[in-house]
């Protein structure tokens, strides 16, 4: 079975096959390079891996869906990375400068109140330039542009209360 796995924006083709008759052994091929993996599910979201051909290295990973969007987040040693399996999950706007092409809608990540709108339709913006400030969870949060481009339209004004997912600004 082959999966298209995207981690931090980089795509890898990962093929999983059972290795012989041993129950937990897999032959895993990543972009053509093959290795033996001893894998076991641990708990609801954990995968414990051992690499017999790489000095018996141990790798413990959790792959859990993020609340709300259904995005997957991979956890390894306290650090995290977004994971997309077979392109099923839509990428979150603004999170990835490499892959942010075309028209991008900047949506409210949670319910809140628009405190300030920092750009107007037609403005040229840089990647990571703040566009809108939304107050939520008692803090003001800047929403930034995922790419360099031009503001196509601004859908809210200061003082508006917004629900999660509401499109605030579109950058093209």
């Amino acid at each position, binding site marked *: 079975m082959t999966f298209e796995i995207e981690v*931090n924006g980089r795509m*890898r083709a990962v093929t999983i096959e059972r290795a012989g008759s041993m129950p937990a052994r897999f032959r895993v091929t990543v972009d053509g390079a093959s290795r033996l993996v001893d894998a076991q599910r641990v708990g609801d979201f954990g*995968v414990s891996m051992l690499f017999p051909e790489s000095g018996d290295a141990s790798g413990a990973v959790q*792959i859990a*869906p*993020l609340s709300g969007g259904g995005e997957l987040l991979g956890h*390894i040693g306290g650090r995290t990375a977004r994971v997309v399996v077979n392109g099923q999950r839509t990428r979150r706007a603004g999170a990835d*400068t490499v892959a942010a092409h075309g028209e991008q809608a900047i949506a409210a990540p949670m319910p809140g109140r628009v405190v300030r709108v920092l750009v107007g339709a037609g403005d040229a913006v840089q990647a990571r330039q703040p566009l809108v400030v939304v*107050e939520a969870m*008692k803090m003001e949060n800047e929403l930034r542009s995922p790419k360099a481009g031009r503001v196509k339209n601004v859908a809210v004004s200061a003082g508006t209360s917004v629900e999660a997912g509401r499109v605030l600004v579109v950058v093209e």
Partner: protein
Amino acid sequence: MKVLIANRGEIAVRIIRACRELGLPTVAVYSDCDRGARHVRDADQAVHVGPSPAVESYLRIDRLIDAARRTGADAVHPGYGFLAENAAFASACRDAGLTFIGPSPDAIALMGSKTAARAVAMRAGVPVVPGTDAPLASDTSDDEIARAAARIGYPVIVKAVAGGGGKGMRDVEYPADLRDAVRTARSEAGSAFGDTSVYLERRLARPRHVEVQLLGDHHGTVIPFVERECSIQRRHQKVVEESPSLAVDARLRERITRAAAAVAASAGYTNAGTIEFLLDEDGSFYFLEMNARLQVEHPVTEMVTSIDLVHWQIRIARGERLAIDPARAATPQGHAIECRIYAEDPDEGFLPSPGLIRGVRAASGPGIRNDGGVASGYTVPVFYDSMIAKLIAWAENRREAVARLSRALAEYEVLGIRTTIPFFLWLVRQQEFLDGRFDTTYLDRLLASRKGESFSELTDGDEERLAIAAALDAWFRATAGPSASAPRAGGWKSVAREEALR
């Protein structure tokens, strides 16, 4: 004594624990969205006090007093934040015959107002940072404010008189930005504290934030504790605290704790409180403000002194005399560091990341304390501060404490939401942090110098492991592999429906 805890989250849980240990029954309060919260489950009784927005629940004095009356509580612990430094609340408790576990209404009014507190410090002979002596009334003209700022000298900071935790606070580098800064600080202060008053203060160049915890009883004794170092701040919000401070030696400790005790004594202060100072590179220190309450970072003091501050808050409120050796309180044993773990995405500018927590494995083991307010199955609501836990590491010295903290952060798992754990793992590897070479501007400067890289510094090998694990995870789900597989969002409900149809 039955204690109503007028708060939520980790601090409510921490106070319930203290009450349990002292054999006291507890009453929790909750808003709509906190019905399933841990403090509600852990308390003996729990009273609904209103809708989710804090102004309609946790900030409603009438409902809190009523909750105490309904449940027969005879004492109230305010925690921190919300009404902890609200003199009207302390008065209302007193008027309702409830013991307020904190300072007197007068002391709160005095020290809770940042401007009045500055006057107290000056009277006690403790230097203060240059600033406006009185709050800027809401009808103060822009011109008047501009003149005050010019008099103090730029850069200035606009601060909420009722402030705390970096809320209602704005840095102003240039006169042109002053008006907007005052306006946003007022608006934030209003929604956070119900008080829009602000004042101005000169911003020192590279100060450290060093603070002194105090306890005062009702018999005239005030005991200051070894200092806490809280210079690691993001936008004026503390994110890492430790004790002792590398910048404070025994002599300076003697001077700064004595100054703190003098301010508290001159305010007639009782119960737990903290005097915050700015410490300049030359060793001179300035009174900044007093926090007339228990603080988020109190555990680091507890860990280096082995004194339980919340137990003492309750004992002081019951009229007990402070039976603490002052030398023990002022002498650190080892070193403790705390990280505030937030439900925030550090890679998205620390955007809040509320939602359902699908799994928690808190760090534990030797030298580790975890003060948490959440558990698996709990939902982090969007309405409040997003701190979900405090991780504290203790060791013989700072180097070992940082190593232990690092070990604990790497084993701390929170699934379903984003947290600041990857940020802390990154921070504890920065050379300046390891060397203790930082001031309150350090973290913001460091963050500003970054170019959007993820705090989760993954090697190619790690990325590949994640990719392999994700593929295996998908394979297990597709084949219901070797051991029990887990449901994705939505799966649980369909199982339940299936069962119902059987």
